[in-house]
């Protein structure tokens, strides 16, 4: 019985450490690459992190251990951002900030739409979702949104 317990403890420790090591090794950049592969853009994505972090997400800088924001080039409006926060208490403020950003972008697009009316559904379906300490926003079409959610969940499970 003692030996069985010892064995069970060993296996549990192994499983726990494997998942801990996995979570520790996952960066926003890694997730971003996986998402880009899952929902490729016409001519690829462009790193817009510096610009948007300064202008829109500066309040999230300290709470995030890694973050990245990418968008397609400016002939379409595809965009997503991945934020890995430090602690659970940082998730809610991050979600709120990203939600406010999406509302603002939706309003901007609605007010200034010239071409690309077919892009508007991306703003209507824009979403913020969380998986543990990972907060992701997407401005993509609904099918792509679902793919992104599944991709992130698969990596962080």
């Amino acid at each position, binding site marked *: 019985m003692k030996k069985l317990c010892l064995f069970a403890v060993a296996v549990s420790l192994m499983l726990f450490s494997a998942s801990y090591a996995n979570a520790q090794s996952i960066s926003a950049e890694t997730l971003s690459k996986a998402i*880009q592969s899952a929902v490729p853009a016409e001519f690829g994505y462009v*790193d*817009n992190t510096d610009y948007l972090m300064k202008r829109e997400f500066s309040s999230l800088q300290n709470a995030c251990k890694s973050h990245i924001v*990418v968008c397609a080039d400016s002939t*379409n409006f595809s965009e997503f951002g991945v934020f890995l926060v430090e602690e659970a208490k940082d998730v809610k403020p991050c979600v709120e900030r990203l939600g406010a950003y999406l509302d603002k972008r939706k309003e901007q697009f609605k*007010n*200034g739409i010239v071409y690309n009316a077919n892009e508007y559904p991306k703003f209507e379906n824009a979403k913020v979702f969380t998986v543990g300490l990972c907060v992701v926003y997407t401005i993509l079409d609904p099918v792509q949104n679902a793919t992104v959610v599944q991709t992130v969940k698969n990596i962080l499970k």
Partner: protein
Amino acid sequence: MEKKLNSFILSVFTILLLSLTLLPLFLCLGKISGSKQLQAIDLSRADGLADTAAECNSDSCVLSETVDAGDEYIRKIIFFGESTTYGLQRYGLLPDGEATTQVWTGATCTDGSVRCAGTLSLSPTINQTRLYYPDDGTAQTIYDALRKKQPEYLVVTLGLNNGASYYSEDEFKQCYRILLNTIVGASAQTNVILQSLFPVAEACKISAYTPERIALCNSWLKDLATEYRLKYLDTASVLSDANGYLLYDYDNGGDGIHLNEAGLQAVLQYVRTHAHPEEHET
């Protein structure tokens, strides 16, 4: 026997513990390398390369009236811009008609095939946007296209999309500086002309587009022309009525934003009769 089994279990447990301790270390060392596809925007170049404009004040940057420089001058120009520029190709108004290779706007890709999107938006990623390069039907960044073409003149008409809609002055200029730094870096000898945004019709339903807003964006364009010692083409002056709206005769009758053939002919006439000083010297 029991002793041996206990020793064995203890050994296995020890090995497992050691592995778990070292595993995160190995994982950290085995970082995935960066993607070549993802290109970071180099914001360090976005502060503007021009010195303070001692030689060029905002008035001297505005192209003044000249004799008609004719089709010979027009042939030397690449018109780079958004959908309001694309009309030059659609209506076949340039020397090679609809087959012109003088209009550069955004590219799109459908089923692996690159096509002209007929639109483009000012944005902080404008320098990495793929535009349709008509010479060979490929998608190129503005940098690569200019490196290949090295045009004598580049007329830039960009900023109605995004810019006039909602950008602040700082955002508008920041995006333009990213673009202009790229242009200068790609083809220093190209004479760059910033053309004013065109006015929109009074019937235009987009609330953001007012004569005041468009005039404001055009004043920012003049500032940028001064900053970079470029030229500014005030085409809006011949397209607007007394209230700053697009003249009725130039409206294509659709969304109130795009010019009809007569309107674009007026644009080209203005370009020819407000030629770049370099053209007089040739």
